[in-house]
């Protein structure tokens, strides 16, 4: 909070610092500026090289690959829109997209809902950093570790959760081995892993809402539920939108927990897009087509992000 208060808004025109003062002494400005430019380029050289070599160039190259047949060992061959035509008729791709959308929907709806409830409850009950720290624990460990321990707890023979569920409901569930349960099980891992992190983000947002807002609401005779719906949620909107966008982007690219647990199975039931792209590229060495799918995924992510920001008017803050 202190940080955001002190720093300039993200607008790029925010020019502060030495200039303001020095502009009163034109002579000094000139000499310093010349030296500054040289030093500045020296300082940004690593970043610029990294950007050009590992972001800009690969992005352009990825675009190019998606119009080629490319099997890594032989040079890429231009084939125009052939990959895109294949994409449209590829039933596995559309199935993967459906699986991914299902996974994203479950992760986002339940994940954000639980995070919001947890953040609001914690904010009202306690300021304890220890509790917020504990719920963040799953965020610190890798997806692989999370996937392994959940797969173990959900193991049909020896898993503690399987045993518990069998005792309570009498049902024997296969979780990752069952085509109906594979995606919800994966979503459960993903929600478990990110819930605390999102709750802490929302919690930080709650802390920025001044108590006077609620006092005014109370004076106007608003009920608690009304204040939650009419004050808390709208004031939290920018941060909620950010959490939703981050969760969507993150779950659209889910890979590690799938690769460790189901590898896309059983029978493609959990074959998410990133898994399919990986299979195409490294299983079948079809880099051209895999690049086309990456491009499609990228376009979808951009479109979704922009739509969400539009819908939620994320850039406006009701607080100012």
């Amino acid at each position: 909070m202190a940080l955001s208060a002190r720093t300039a808004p993200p607008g790029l025109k925010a020019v502060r610092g030495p200039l303001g003062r020095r502009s009163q002494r034109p002579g000094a400005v000139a000499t310093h500026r010349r030296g500054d430019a040289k030093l500045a380029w020296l300082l940004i050289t690593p970043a610029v090289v990294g950007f050009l070599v590992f972001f800009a160039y690969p992005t352009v190259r990825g675009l190019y690959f998606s119009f080629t047949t490319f099997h890594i060992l032989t040079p890429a061959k231009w084939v125009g829109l052939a990959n895109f035509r294949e994409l449209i008729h590829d039933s596995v791709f559309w199935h993967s997209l459906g699986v991914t959308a299902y996974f994203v929907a479950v992760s986002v709806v339940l994940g954000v809902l639980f995070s919001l409830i947890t953040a609001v409850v914690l904010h009202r009950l306690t300021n304890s950093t220890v509790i917020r720290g504990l719920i963040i624990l799953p965020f610190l460990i890798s997806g692989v570790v999370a996937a392994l321990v959940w797969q173990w707890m959900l193991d049909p023979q020896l898993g503690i959760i399987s045993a518990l569920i069998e005792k309570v409901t009498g049902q024997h569930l296969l979780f990752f081995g069952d085509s109906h349960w594979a995606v919800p099980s994966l979503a459960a891992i993903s929600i478990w892993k990110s819930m605390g992190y999102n709750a802490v983000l929302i919690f930080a947002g709650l802390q920025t809402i001044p108590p006077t807002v609620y006092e005014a609401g109370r004076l106007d005779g608003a009920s608690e539920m009304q204040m939650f719906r009419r004050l808390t949620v709208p004031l939290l909107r920018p941060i909620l939108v950010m959490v939703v966008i981050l969760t969507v982007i993150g779950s659209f690219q889910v890979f590690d927990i799938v690769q460790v647990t189901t590898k896309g199975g059983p029978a493609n039931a959990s074959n998410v897009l990133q898994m399919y792209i990986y299979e195409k590229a490294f299983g079948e060495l079809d880099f051209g087509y895999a690049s086309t799918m990456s491009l499609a995924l990228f376009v979808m992510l951009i479109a979704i992000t922009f739509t969400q920001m539009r819908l939620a008017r994320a850039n406006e803050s009701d607080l100012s």
Partner: protein
Amino acid sequence: MSTLSSSATTAGPRPAAGARPRFSPGKAVAWIYVVVVLVVTIFPFYWILRTAFSNNVALPTDPSSLLPVDFTVGAFKRALGLASTAEAQSQGGSGASLDTALYLRNSIVYATVQTALVVFFSAMAAYAFSRLRWKGRDAVFTVLLCALMVPGILTLLPNFVLVRNLGLMDSFAGLILPGALFSAFNVFFLRQFMLGLSTEIEEAAIVDGASRMRIFFKITLPMTAAPIATLSLLTFINTWNDYFWPLLVTNGEHARPLTLALGVFKQSSPQAAPDWAGLMAATLIAALPMLVLFMVFGRRIVNSIGFTGLK
């Protein structure tokens, strides 16, 4: 749910606790919810511990025992490659071994070097973008920020091809280089902070004849210590847990990090009777550095996540 949020709204806005009754049914429900959340969050960690100290052969005899089944440290011995093959097999380990110590070293090298380099280079760039005046500054910055928009998936395959063409497969250089020079988020984050620093100390140093480079190292970097620590923590955690990039670049054990080795080990272990105890012991070793970081820097991590969200 409605009970929860409404009761929750009641208590908060007025922190004057004395005016409120100490106990209310709504509050009790809310506390129960918190306890359930904490149990669900922490139980898997306990389960890793419980399984890691169990004897894998004895596990099926009491699958829902809350304590280790037939307590032993054999699983850790297996995970660290200290057990003889006969000893390992007698406790239900497979003959295949996971050289945890070597992978652990790889993880430490990967995460430490990557974090140190990218945070330092980002601080350098952030200084140029916030404290120096030069032509084209804002334009260059805007272009670099575009990288925030590009998700990993678009650059992963071409970067793999690039690293392969450079002959850097299966090496730390190939693993680290793509992420070591530039991070749009880090540059943006540090620039925001440096923009807010007071200019007076810097100007005094200039008057005293200090060079810009000296000012960067002796004044700006120390003043930026807190956000740099925050970024280092987050970068270290992310790198330690990274899976996809190491999966593409490493195929032997020379540079393969532990996180990845665990996943691969799990897939190669027999479906029928996996060595869950050994696997959980290795998992614990993989997660341990994160848990230690958490014990030491827990408060900072919590606060920094709040920070990063509020910009």
